[in-house]
């Protein structure tokens, strides 16, 4: 079953079994945002603490499948300690990796993808471990699993930038 082996890479199962940055942060100073995948019940709560323009700390709780949990875990390591610009750039890059397929399948379905187009892409980032999630695009229903934590992060960042501009 080559397809399945492509999906369940070693590194994904590792992040699933040993999620990084698991836990909570005190609110305040942290901000918490919860994301749901209404269709399957996955849910994630993300605690985000900024220090000026930098992601000072990030922690996660919640439950879900190997894809949503490993994606969240990898996401947390990818953005922790990074500048907001780098975090946004990583989000864009990850979503681009996922959304190629999403669009081909489902037209204009997902409105939250809007902003990824013409944003300035000057910050260079590498996806690192996250590349392992590339296999997900062959399993379109699982894309929503992979993007859940990312959409939650976007919401948290948007909220924080709206309260402290």
């Amino acid at each position, binding site marked *: 079953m080559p397809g399945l082996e492509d999906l369940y890479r070693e590194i994904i199962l590792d992040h699933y079994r040993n999620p990084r940055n698991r836990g909570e942060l005190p609110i305040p100073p942290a901000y918490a945002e919860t994301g749901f995948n209404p269709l399957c019940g996955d849910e994630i709560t993300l605690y985000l603490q900024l220090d000026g323009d930098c992601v000072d700390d990030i922690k996660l709780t919640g439950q879900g499948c190997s894809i949503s949990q490993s994606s969240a875990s990898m996401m947390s390591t990818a953005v922790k300690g990074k500048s907001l610009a780098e975090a946004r750039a990583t989000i864009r890059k990850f979503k681009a990796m996922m959304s190629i397929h999403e669009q081909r399948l*489902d037209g*204009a379905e997902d409105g939250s993808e809007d902003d990824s187009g013409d944003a300035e892409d000057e910050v260079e980032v590498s996806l690192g471990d996250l590349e392992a999630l590339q296999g997900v695009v062959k399993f379109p229903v*699982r894309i929503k699993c992979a993007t859940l934590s990312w959409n939650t992060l976007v919401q948290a960042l948007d909220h924080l930038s709206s309260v402290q501009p």
Partner: protein
Amino acid sequence: MAIDPVLIKKDFPILDRLVHGKRLVYLDSASSSQKPTAVIEAMSQYYETTHANVHRGVYTIAEEATRLFEAGRASVARFIGASSTSEVVFTKNVTEAINLVAYSWGRSNLNAGDVVVLTEMEHHSNLVPWLALKAERGIELRYLPVTDDGLLDLSNLDEILDGAKLVGVTAVSNVLGTINPIRLIADAAHAAGAMVLVDGAQLAPHLPTDVKALGADFFGLTGHKMLGPTGIGALWARAELLDAMPPFLGGGEMIRDVRLDGFTPNDIPWKFEAGTPPIAEAVGLSAAVDYLTAIGLPAVRDHERELTAYALTTLRDRYPDLVIHGPLDASLRGGVISFNYKDVHPHDLSQVLDESGVCVRAGHHCAKPLMRRLGVGATARASFSVYNDGADVDALVDALATADRLFA
């Protein structure tokens, strides 16, 4: 592209049928259209190869079913010029679409004394939901009157719109055929601060539809009148409106989270789609929309306008006593001709025509207030679709002679 009725008739299996030994001459498309093989087979094939519940399964056929269902939504969205598929909510028919607006938007925006403007030519589906709200909340209903020519009387438009919160108007009358100047009304309504709900049941099957060009805020359509299956309709509304509206029906699909003490609704459009949606019906409606698009809506319109002009002329030439309601200029009307003939009641007319295989509808056409305005209890109504041709009109005209004989 001009329509070749010989070819098109072949696509509609029911038209091979005989009634009382006569070929079926179906002239009741305004009530419900027939379905081409492409639509019937799309649904059969869906059930035979792909069915599963949507938005739920990880497995292959569930994913395929979800893709087909959402592709149906995308087809409808493109067909009516929506900006995004998230603006298209599937309902069971246009009646539910209008009720959704009345329950969700209406009950969160309209209170005692608030004004909703309708027209005297509305279908009951765009009257009763507002009459119910009037009974429940004491909203005020005002009506744009109908002229003796069967047009909307817009002479007091601004006055009638003054203070209105919503204008509900049919794009095309299902009785008179009148094509209403929606854009003009919408502009005036917006200037007066009112939202515009367009009942597109008789527009979408027959004329190119562009919800934004119409200036609509809400737009409803119904599958079974546009070559699609029964059991499906759609509400289009601007995304901001849908986003701000509370849910209507509660249940599966429309939630983000449910706890024993409360729930959080899903994103649009699913927020308004409670329970298992009309999946096979969305597949069928998509095939219908593809069928209409392949012909081209301008060609459909030209064909039906010519047929209507021919019918108006032939009927009036042969039966000078026939009273035809609505505008006599075919360019002002869709392919719907309501008439009364001497003292022969429409039911009797319809019964007599049926004996010749000709199907016309008799009754109030779910527009009782308009019947009162026309001063009749009922009319007979012949209405056209892509599959009708001049021979169908001739069959109608000839069959009317039987009424003359029987009721002489």
